[in-house]
């Protein structure tokens, strides 16, 4: 026994010594070799652009594939991807894309217009079950095809005029259409590769494995170890390869934020997807802090079930919305990383500023509550706030619970549920008040306002206003100028917020730890990553 113990400790100390000798951290070796070590949040579901959903998948898929356009990370303006240039008809309905003749698949094949036609047909195919198919719905007849109402794909508004020219026709003018074209659901996939492993619309084929995958992006896949890491390397066939400065990227599935932060501290990562909330003051106080905070196109809010008492009374909803001190909540519990939100659309969404109707006003809130029949909280029937289990959601709920108690003298009970149960409960509208967040798919108020269309899948409040629907769906797309369009949005959003179907709480922010050697990775509203722009420069 004693012998065993002794040899155990010997082994331990030998390993410790060995690890000390190894010495060089990922960041050091990465800076030398041009390899970025990237904390990617989770193991990707997969790498098929027409199947996956989610941010971690987006980062990897966007490295391996490229759409018609790509996004400049500094300005978020669309810039050439596979499409070299494009023309838009005066009525905004027809787009002609001229593809770059140099665009290549990673096996050397040329990327042609027919690749896009076939890929979009696949992306929209009703049997595929592509959860992001709706991104292509501005295209004429795309929705009809995806929902099975139309069987002939030739009637959908996408056509290859020749090998390098693509014509796309839309249902209605869509100012944000170009923005959608760097979303992975619009990416092309390599038809011969897919068909080697089965039907194009199969979900189960191994075409995305390391040995099989053929992409057209700036990087190629070289290693995929489940729950461990994914490695990509600069592609030798990419048309814009001279601009790509990284030799490779290693993506880590860092699902535990505390682990991710420790990995960063130990020099195993250049970049973290997020940062534990209570570490923020520590990093903020640092000199040359690696902590980066920027506004993010998303709103954190509470859904109100407008069909059940006591929230069926707009005065009660308004009282709740106006009696919480968002600034205080953010500055204390959230260490000041976010901005208070008073409407669903984040401020300055491509120059659009939403109305500010629900500002903190305790006196008015009390008065409204009294008018609704609960003076100073008397007779209050109680209210349950539902949130999915998460540290930040809990903290916000606990703080707000007490604020409502202090300002309105009403009791709010809290209920947390595990993620999938929570989704189910919200979907069934089996709640009174529930936490929710929405991150924009593209920078446009439309993406936030159309949540609250009558019976919309993400509405979940019971809010339904025909006039609002008309403004968002019919009037806004027909506006002839940005000012006119924004004015319609403003009026629509005012109607929406007057009805208080939600309590906006804050505008999201992105929070990362980024090693000083990482260059060319600016913060932007979409937290959008364009690896083409990134390079590493070891700081002496």
């Amino acid at each position, binding site marked *: 026994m004693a012998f065993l113990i002794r040899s155990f400790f010997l082994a331990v100390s030998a390993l410790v010594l060995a690890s000390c000798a190894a010495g060089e951290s990922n960041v050091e070796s990465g800076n030398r070799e041009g390899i970025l070590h990237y904390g990617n949040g989770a193991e990707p579901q997969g790498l098929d652009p027409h199947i996956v959903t989610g941010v971690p998948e987006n980062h990897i898929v966007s490295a391996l594939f490229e759409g018609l356009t790509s996004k400049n990370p500094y300005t978020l303006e669309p810039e050439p991807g596979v499409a070299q240039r494009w023309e838009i008809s005066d009525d905004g309905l027809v787009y002609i894309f001229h593809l770059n003749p140099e665009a290549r698949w990673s096996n050397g094949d040329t990327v042609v217009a027919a690749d896009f036609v076939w890929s979009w047909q696949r992306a929209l195919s009703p049997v595929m079950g592509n959860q992001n198919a709706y991104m292509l719905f501005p295209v004429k007849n795309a929705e009809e095809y995806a929902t099975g109402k139309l069987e002939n794909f030739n009637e959908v508004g996408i056509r290859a005029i020749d090998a390098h020219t693509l014509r796309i026709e839309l249902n209605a003018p869509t100012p944000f259409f170009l923005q959608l074209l760097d979303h992975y659901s619009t990416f092309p996939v390599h038809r011969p590769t897919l068909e080697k492993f089965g039907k194009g619309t199969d979900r189960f084929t191994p075409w995305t494995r390391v040995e099989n995958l053929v992409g057209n992006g700036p990087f190629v896949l070289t290693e995929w170890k489940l729950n461990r890491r994914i490695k990509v390397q600069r592609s030798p066939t990419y048309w814009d390869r001279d601009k790509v400065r990284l030799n490779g990227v290693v993506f880590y599935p860092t699902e535990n934020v505390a682990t991710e932060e420790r990995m960063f501290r130990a020099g195993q990562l250049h970049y973290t997807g997020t940062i*534990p909330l209570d570490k923020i003051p520590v990093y903020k106080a640092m000199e040359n802090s690696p902590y980066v905070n920027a506004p993010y196109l998303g709103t954190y809010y509470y859904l109100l079930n407008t069909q059940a008492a006591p929230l069926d009374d707009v005065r009660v909803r308004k009282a709740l919305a106006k009696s919480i001190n968002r600034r205080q909540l953010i500055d204390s519990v959230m260490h000041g990383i976010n901005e208070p939100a008073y409407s669903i659309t984040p401020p300055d969404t491509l120059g659009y500023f939403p109305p500010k109707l629900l500002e903190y006003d305790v006196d008015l809130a009390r008065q409204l509550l009294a008018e609704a029949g609960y003076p100073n909280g008397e007779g209050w029937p109680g209210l349950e706030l539902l949130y999915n289990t998460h540290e930040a959601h809990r903290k916000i709920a606990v*703080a707000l*619970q*007490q604020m409502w108690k202090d300002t309105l003298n009403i009791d709010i009970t809290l*209920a947390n549920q595990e993620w999938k*149960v929570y989704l189910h409960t919200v979907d069934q509208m089996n709640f009174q008040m529930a936490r929710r967040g929405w991150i924009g798919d593209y920078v446009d108020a439309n993406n936030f306002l159309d949540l609250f269309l009558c019976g919309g899948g993400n509405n979940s409040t019971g809010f339904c206003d025909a006039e609002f629907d008309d403004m968002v769906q019919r009037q806004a797309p027909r506006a002839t100028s940005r000012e006119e369009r924004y004015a319609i949005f403003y009026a629509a959003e005012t109607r929406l917020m007057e009805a208080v179907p939600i309590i906006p709480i804050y505008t999201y922010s992105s929070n990362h730890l980024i090693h000083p050697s990482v260059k060319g990775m600016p913060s932007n509203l979409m937290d959008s990553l364009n690896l083409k722009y990134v390079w590493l420069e070891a700081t002496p």
Partner: protein
Amino acid sequence: MNDQAINMIAQAPPGSSLWRDAWHRLKRNRLALFGLAVLSFFILIALLTPWIAPYGYADQNLDLGASPPSAEHWLGTDVFGRDLLTQIMYGGRISLAVGFVATSVALLIGVTWGAIAGYVGGRVDAAMMRMVDILYALPFMIFIVLLMVVFGRNLILLFLAIGAVEWLTMARIMRSQVQTLRQQEFVEAAISIGLPASTIVRRHLIPNALGPIIVYTTLTIPSVMLLEAFLSFLGLGVQPPQTSWGLLISYGAETMEEYPWLLIFPGLALTLTLFSLNFLGDGLRDALDVRGAGD
């Protein structure tokens, strides 16, 4: 059967005096008494908390936030500026209740189940133990999620859910003990003179198997207290602003570098409870050990 064995049976002390003797022996064990005292103290505090807590458990001071121990807040405050001492006192009510009630449930089911399986043996034993295997293998999380959906959220359910999981190992230990004991002379003797099975189990098997059972029980209570935190994560446990030691510890663990006191003090409460339980458990084990007593 030999004479000695008959003598052993004859001399087996009647129930009441077994416990009385045990109490005498326990009183001589200072550590066990210390454990008993600490536990009694904690229980007393838990009972009196609503009257003696220095602050309200939901009272926040957002502008103060997390602050280290001070004259106003002896154990510091959490990120909401709530008094930690108050939180620990209220948390103890939940944790002690969960710990003792859920463990008792587990003990009752596990000991009975294991004793029957071990004593009866044969097909009954096989069937009963395979049931245990099945329950071991079911995905616990899905089970809890379903419980919550079917019965809603309440503390009684929480106790039952925990008890329903924790009894399995208890049953296995009890069974293997009983199996061992059953082969011993004094039990074989008792069987052969025709004592009813219930008497044998009650008077000979359970008391003699108590040692490992008590040890395992004292270990189960703290782990049950921590399990409660996980159930709260799934939405079954206590809801804020209510709290428990398990929750305080798991929150504290997330900020151990920034606000160490939020981890240390709840951790200390749990550790003290665990040590007291173990001292008491060991004391009980020794006190009940008839054969060891003569040494």
